[in-house]
């Protein structure tokens, strides 16, 4: 009896959360021949995983406990970690929460979305492997384990990218992703082995104890390798073209996973690497590295997105642009910055998931995501349109949706950092962030004009709304987008601030695993104070009152006394205004919008277009050059 009770203790929940996903993958291979069995198995395992993670929120996030779990009870002997460990602090749990929510919603969506595909069994197997891989990565307390999980998730992601291998570019995208992803994984492995050679341990906590005091050339090289390796997983510049290819070609439910979950795993790796393993974030130069790459990612990718004419590819570039925000905020190394960055990471999972699902819904019904071939879908797919608009407003940072709340914190964090450090460079970052936000808005205006509004092409006359299961999945994300936007204080207090505090509590992280943390600087007092004021609930209340009064006046004055033209049978009293010509189809295509902006930047766009050549050798070269630069950087400044 006691062993049963023991097995139900929440100490075991992290490993259960990982295991149920992998177990689900295995069981689907064995018993998944039948659709019902397959769906039930998949739903069971994602629900169970979500439940295990949710059960951990109270002890880990709110009570501040750090779960140190040694597999098979092999605790450290003689001061050295010999077993494989899971270590779950608030930061890990934060990312695990994102993963499990995204996996859950994406899984629910898949059931309707993938039912017309062949090989559904393989799909769910890979899907759960991908989820399990990311879950394992963020909960792991062991560097080599992280590498294994990175490989599992890269593998599953590549296979799923190529899943619809008849779709345009799917195989190509998968191959490019595999090549550059493997370079990244190789970097992680080499870095891991070099750290092992220096520190003789693979345990993260012990590495964090040993490395910072003993930096030498080998560990510096290892830093660069690991940084670049996790960078490829987060798709930050210069790896963003792969994200665009992979997200664009994969099924929508997988794009949600890649952008909402996989990129986060890269960010998680970078945070662990810089804040924990090397503890170098208090160096101004390290902050510069992260903030620079982050700002570059957000700006380059948003401009690339403006030039896209494929719905999903455009979303993919935005995805990396938003990751740029996260990295920038995290790189500030202030409590407010980290909290804002994590908040944005969470919001990014939600709104980008929603947008990809909306894109998937459009693809599901119309068979294309080419912006030039779509239009006017708001009349045929009203629910999808509303849900898409919620996502679009969220990502563009329109109040009161969640993107605004987190971006607003990021602006303040960067500006506050600029003022505190007296460094005018951070001011530039604030400006870039603000301008990126409006460019994001611009490209979503383009999408809404060329997909949901405008005129309906004749070929799309018979389009229907997507089935309930898909709408339900989108509605979950939409609801979360609204809620996290309306209650920013609750979100920061209960979710992001504990996680941000964990980032600054390296000593506890080391101590929880039973290692001596006396050499590490104790937790500094972290302050989440910010100067801005924003009360979304009051604002919404006032807006509702205002809107209500406007509407009452409007209805009272017969505002809705309207006559809708039907196209053919025009009321004879309007004939005066017609020359008798038939109505033509004339839609302003997505590619033609924002001409005034693009015209002034044509030089920049030309260069960018040539750089993103689509040749895998070029992308590999970028990876190598990036590696060389980061190597040089870390050898000089660390």
């Amino acid at each position, binding site marked *: 009896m006691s062993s049963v009770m023991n097995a139900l203790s929440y100490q075991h929940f992290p490993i259960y959360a990982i295991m149920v996903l992998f177990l689900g993958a295995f069981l689907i291979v064995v018993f998944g021949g039948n659709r019902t069995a397959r769906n039930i198995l998949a739903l069971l395992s994602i629900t169970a995983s979500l439940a295990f993670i949710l059960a951990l929120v109270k002890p880990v996030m709110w009570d501040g406990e750090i779960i140190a779990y040694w597999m098979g009870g092999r605790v450290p002997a003689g001061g050295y970690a010999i077993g494989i460990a899971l270590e779950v602090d608030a930061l890990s749990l934060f990312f695990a929460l994102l993963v499990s929510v995204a996996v859950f919603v994406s899984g629910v969506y898949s059931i309707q979305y993938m039912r017309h595909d062949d090989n559904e069994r393989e799909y769910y197997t890979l899907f759960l492997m991908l989820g399990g891989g990311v879950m394992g990565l963020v909960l792991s307390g062991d560097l*080599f384990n992280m590498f*294994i999980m990175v*490989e599992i998730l890269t*593998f599953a992601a*590549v*296979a799923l990218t*190529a899943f619809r*291998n008849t779709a*345009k*570019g799917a*195989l*190509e*995208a*998968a*191959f490019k992703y*595999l*090549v550059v992803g*493997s*370079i990244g*994984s*190789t970097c992680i*492995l*080499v870095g*891991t*082995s*070099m750290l*092992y*050679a220096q520190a*003789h341990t*693979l345990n993260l906590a012990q590495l964090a104890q040993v490395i910072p005091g003993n930096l030498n050339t080998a560990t510096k090289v290892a830093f660069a390798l690991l940084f670049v390796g996790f960078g490829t997983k987060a798709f930050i510049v210069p790896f963003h073209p792969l994200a*665009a*290819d992979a997200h*664009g*070609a994969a099924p929508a439910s997988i794009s949600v996973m890649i952008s909402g979950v996989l990129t986060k795993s890269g960010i998680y790796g970078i945070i662990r690497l810089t804040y924990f393993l090397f503890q170098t974030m208090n160096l101004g130069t390290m902050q510069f590295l992260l903030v620079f790459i982050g700002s570059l990612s957000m700006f380059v990718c948003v401009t690339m997105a403006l*030039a896209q004419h494929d719905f999903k*590819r455009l979303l993919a570039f935005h995805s990396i642009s938003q990751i740029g925000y996260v990295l920038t905020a995290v790189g500030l190394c202030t409590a407010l910055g980290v909290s804002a960055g994590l908040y944005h990471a969470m919001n990014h999972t939600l709104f980008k998931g929603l947008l990809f699902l909306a894109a998937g819904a459009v693809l599901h019904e119309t068979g294309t995501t080419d912006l030039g071939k779509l239009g006017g879908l708001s009349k045929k797919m009203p629910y999808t349109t509303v849900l898409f608009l919620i996502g679009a407003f969220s990502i563009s940072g329109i109040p009161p949706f969640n993107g605004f709340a987190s971006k607003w914190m990021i602006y303040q964090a960067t500006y506050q950092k600029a003022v505190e450090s007296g460094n005018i460079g951070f001011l530039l970052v604030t400006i870039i962030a603000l301008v990126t936000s409006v460019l994001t808005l611009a490209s979503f205006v383009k999408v809404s004009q060329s997909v949901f509004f405008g005129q309906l092409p004749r070929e799309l006359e018979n389009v229907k709304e997507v089935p309930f299961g898909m709408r339900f999945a989108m509605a979950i994300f939409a609801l979360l987008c609204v809620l996290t936007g309306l209650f920013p204080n609750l979100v920061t207090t209960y979710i992001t601030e504990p996680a941000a505090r964990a980032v600054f509590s390296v000593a506890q992280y080391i101590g929880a695993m039973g290692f001596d943390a006396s050499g590490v600087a104790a937790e500094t007092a972290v302050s989440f104070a910010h100067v801005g004021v924003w009360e979304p609930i009051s604002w919404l209340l006032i807006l509702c009152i205002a809107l209500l009064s406007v509407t009452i006046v409007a209805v009272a004055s017969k505002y809705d006394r309207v006559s809708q033209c039907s196209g053919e049978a025009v009321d004879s009293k309007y004939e005066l205004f017609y020359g008798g010509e038939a109505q033509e189809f004339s839609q302003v295509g997505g590619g033609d919008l924002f001409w005034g902006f693009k015209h002034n930047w044509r030089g920049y766009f030309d260069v*960018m*277009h040539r750089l*993103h*050549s*689509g*040749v*895998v*050798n070029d992308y*590999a*070269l970028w990876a*190598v050059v990036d590696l060389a630069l980061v190597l040089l950087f870390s050898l000089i400044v660390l």
Partner: protein
Amino acid sequence: MIMLNYIASFFLITLGLYTIVTKHNLVKTVIGLSIADYGVNLLLISIGFNPGGTAPIFTWSELNPASFFVDPIPQALTLTSIVIGACVTAMSLALVIKLEEQYGTTDTREIRRLHG
């Protein structure tokens, strides 16, 4: 002696990366990935090597402070890495076959429908 291993392993990794960057044939790209992988394996196994050490196979009673053996952990890592490397090769070759069917070429410069 062990230095030579390190040099060789980094040479292999560099050679692999060089192949990936410069060769325009899909199969050669895959070969490049494998070469880099072998380099990493060599590095891993060299890290765990102690000159004169025995194989790290002991029972608890045999183990004493004087026993001198090579580090077993990198060997375990190497095994894992070899398996992963094989998977990468298998998967990428499968993709190459499919790509050749769809595009009719294995030249990377022509496989760029997704760009810009």
